[in-house]
């Protein structure tokens, strides 16, 4: 977009709503940034001379004679290695008291990667958590959210995964993050000595909600710089995408759009996909992996936000408190990593896929047995054994505080199989049974 030598100042606003204002102006580009009495705004509609601006921080106190200048450019972020270790707000301005970052200015929300230039994700991300590594293995270039109720420890698990994942850069996009959680992340990363690998774009609950809309694009523009230009492995953490979607619905509502399911805008799928699809494995080694949080209300995954997310992301991880062992586990039934097939049994031991499926199936049998018990029926010997197995499986493998490598997890699973079941009950391919069944268990 061409730069403008001098800026024309408009002072006649014709319409003000809660989030937008309109004025007569010419030569304005779509998506262009503007300032309205110093507040940042963006062009969302042009009809002849009539231009509608969305003011990110709200229109409270905006007068009809406010000074409006157009900046002649879409939202930008200056990118360079100096971003590392810094904290920014949703506009990419430092909030850590440090100096502004110098570097090349890039448009945020830029173009997508040509699908034929993508590389198939193929590098396993080890986390040490069996609920992830064994049952829902993560791969670089993947996008996956935690579906969690607000009271679940998703921030802790996410921070743990981020630190164990050994990424070159971790980029935190915080949307509507409480100040306490923001400080939690800062402390955890600081204590791990990882602060120089972290870049944060944070919109806290104290900031105006519409500003959040810029956070994912800011975070991902920085991510593309490190992953594409610098060929680094980048992990992007986005929390909480539900609050991002809520901000989308506020804007679409103010723009008089017809809402679709759950009062969300009809474009929710495309809006979310644009963000998540930035996860990519580049041909020259760099990668962007996105781990997000989508908070649920009462565990309802049929709500438009988790529902659309599930169709976009490559799986989802559910946290659940297992009351039998009193620990938080990664729910083996509802969690899924779609890309695990690319690495399990290939970068891990060949028996991995079958062991994983057999264990989950037996765990499901245990759940049925438990239902039977709750309904007051007698249990068969098999039922009893599955329930014993389930408890140990949960305790020794699924709990999020377990930290072992994948081979260790597989051996542990075989041990549990042999302890509680016959070979036929486990139903794994004979060649693996011959190889791994511990005879003297």
């Amino acid at each position, binding site marked *: 977009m061409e730069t403008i030598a001098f800026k024309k100042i408009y002072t006649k606003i014709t319409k003000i709503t809660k989030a937008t204002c309109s004025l007569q102006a010419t030569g304005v580009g779509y998506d262009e940034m503007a300032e309205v009495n110093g507040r940042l705004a963006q062009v969302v509609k042009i*009809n*002849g001379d009539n231009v509608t601006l969305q003011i990110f921080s709200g229109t409270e106190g905006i007068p009809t004679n406010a000074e409006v200048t157009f900046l002649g450019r879409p939202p930008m972020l200056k990118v360079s290695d100096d971003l590392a270790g810094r904290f920014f707000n949703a506009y990419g301005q430092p909030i850590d008291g440090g100096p502004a970052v110098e570097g090349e200015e890039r448009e945020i929300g*830029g173009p997508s*990667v*040509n699908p034929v*230039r993508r590389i198939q994700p193929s590098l396993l991300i080890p986390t040490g958590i069996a609920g992830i590594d064994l049952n829902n293995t993560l791969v670089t*270039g993947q996008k996956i959210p935690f579906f969690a109720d607000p009271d679940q420890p998703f921030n802790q698990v996410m921070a743990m995964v981020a630190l164990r994942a050994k990424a070159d850069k971790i980029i935190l996009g915080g949307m509507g993050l409480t100040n306490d959680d923001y400080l939690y992340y800062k402390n955890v990363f600081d204590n791990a000595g990882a602060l120089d690998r972290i870049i944060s774009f944070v919109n806290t609950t104290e900031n105006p909600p519409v500003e959040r809309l810029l956070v994912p694009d800011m975070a991902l523009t920085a991510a593309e710089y490190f992953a594409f230009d610098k060929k680094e492995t980048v992990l992007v953490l986005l929390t909480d995408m539900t609050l991002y979607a809520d901000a989308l619905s506020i804007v679409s509502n103010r723009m008089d759009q017809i809402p679709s399911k759950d009062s969300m805008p009809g474009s929710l799928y495309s809006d979310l996909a644009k963000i998540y699809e930035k996860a990519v494995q580049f041909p020259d080694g760099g990668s962007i992996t996105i781990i997000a949080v989508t908070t649920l209300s009462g565990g309802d995954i049929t709500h438009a936000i988790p529902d659309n997310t599930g169709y976009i992301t490559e799986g989802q991880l559910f946290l659940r408190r297992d009351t039998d062992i009193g620990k938080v586990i990664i729910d083996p039934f509802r969690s899924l990593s779609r890309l695990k097939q690319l690495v399990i049994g290939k970068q891990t031991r060949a028996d991995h896929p079958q062991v994983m*499926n057999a264990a989950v199936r037996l765990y499901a049998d245990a759940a049925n047995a438990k239902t039977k018990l709750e309904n007051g029926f007698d249990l068969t010997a098999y039922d009893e054994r599955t329930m014993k197995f389930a408890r140990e499986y949960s305790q020794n493998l699924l709990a999020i505080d377990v930290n072992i490598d994948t081979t260790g997890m597989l051996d542990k699973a075989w041990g549990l199989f042999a302890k509680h079941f016959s070979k036929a009950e486990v139903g794994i*391919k004979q060649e693996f049974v011959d190889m791994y069944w511990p005879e003297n268990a």
Partner: protein
Amino acid sequence: MMENKNRTKGVVSGIIANLVMVEVSGPVSQNEICYIELSGESLMAEVIKVIGKVAYVQVFESTRGLKVGNTVEFMGHMLEATLGPGILSRNYDGLQHDLDKMDGVFLKRGEYTQAIDPNAKWDFKPLAKVGDAVSAGSWLGSVKENWIDHKIMVPFKFEGSYKVKWLAEAGNYMASETMAVLEDENGKELPVTMIQHFPVKLAIKAYTEKPRPYRLMETGIRIIDTLNPIVEGGTGFIPGPFGSGKTVLQHALSRQAEADLIIVAACGERANEVVEIFYEFPHLDDPRTGRKLIERTTIIANTSNMPVAAREASVYTAMTIGEYYRSMGLKVLLLADSTSRWAQALREMSNRMEELPGPDAFPMDLPAIISNFYARAGYVRLNNGSTGSITFIGTVSPAGGNLKEPVTESTKKAARCFYALSQQRADSKRYPAVDPIDSYSKYLEYSEFQEYLSEHISVDWIDKVELARNLLLRGKEANEQINILGDDGVPIDYHLRYWRSEVIDFVILQQDAFDKVDSSTPLERQQYMLNLVLNICDTSLDFDSFEEVNPYFKRIINLLKQMNYSDFKSEQFNNFENELMATLNERKAA
């Protein structure tokens, strides 16, 4: 862009996201293509509404930076597919631009590449003769495209009848060379090259009739071929909540289905899923031809982060390419993943145009649009008597997994096969998670198809399939009773009934899409296994208590599964079968 005096010009007068209002200075038509100039780039757009002098166009690109006053040029034609040799093995975007020919890692706005290389050379063999009377779709000659005899046809846009005035001799020609000259009824001569264009939103109707389809299309997937078969020229759809395995099932279809060529329209879905095809298909063998799968595959990739408006176009582009190959007498399989994303693209546009919304804010004519689209598939008899088919299978991603939503309901009215993916089956890892009770194939009711099955498989095949279906239903009922009354509250017979249905479930319905042997089951093997399983279900067994039933059937199922993992009739397979028979004899009632 080439200057053309006759073309209608216009200027941009308003912008709301990718809906742009253009003030025009001449005639425009609905669905006409135009290009908007924006600092050296030209953005492709399509007219979707006209009011007075204002044309509303949907832009197939981001409109960032677009200004009032930017100039627009209308092209005088609708969105067209480019048809000719060289489409196979290509990766296109939704507007049929060749993705491999684009520069750089990132897509650039306004970078449009040619669908077909006009300079590529092909070995031409004439099929018609000078003096032949021909019409749209008549075969003039053929070239070898990969292993397919690609017919060079009279362009579909040609109306009426023509005479072949001149035809090129056999030899090596560029795609853009004139291969024939046709003379119309008024003596006007028209040159024909290997390349032609046709509007994607119009159906190619160069055939004499569209009879009811009757030939089984083998997919190697047992729950489809055995229980809910689809036919050549049939339509089907796969609705399912996320995580229920829609894409894995579609990929299995694209790998294994017995079609001459496969067109995959990745419509608003994940880019990594398309990458999987890019990566695997060049290495996987097509068992029927011994060639690589990629040689019979064309991919239309409009992933979810690519422009929304092009998503709508992508399914039409794919269908038009399918119709082109069908006119050559080929069996085409068209897969679209997912038609819900297409419907959502329609919804976004309808919303921006401030149309009154239908259910769930979808446009009111959604059911009509969907059924028109499905109607373009089918089995046809061409003008020269040979036949061709497009089998279409679309996936649907129902919001919240609830099948009572507009896209699923509209599709259900249009498609003849219904493969309902069930969350419950997916949760218990019973893949493919096609619900055996809810799913159906209407083709089983076609008398033509019934005859075909009794001739090609066995006379009692349909009865056996029905029997298997009944056993599944009875097993489900028995299981419900057991859950209500408790294991010891029901007769042993209920447990037997339940476990017989489990045998069918584990051995016939469930299939390991990632196992080399089990992933694809030829029909002969499917028949063998169904007979074996029904035989087991028919054997009366003796048990003293219900507690013996579960472990016994687990052994039976385990042996049958090991058979599924073994090469058909291999030593290993036979050993497992012998062991199975011995196990069966243990309990056989006298």
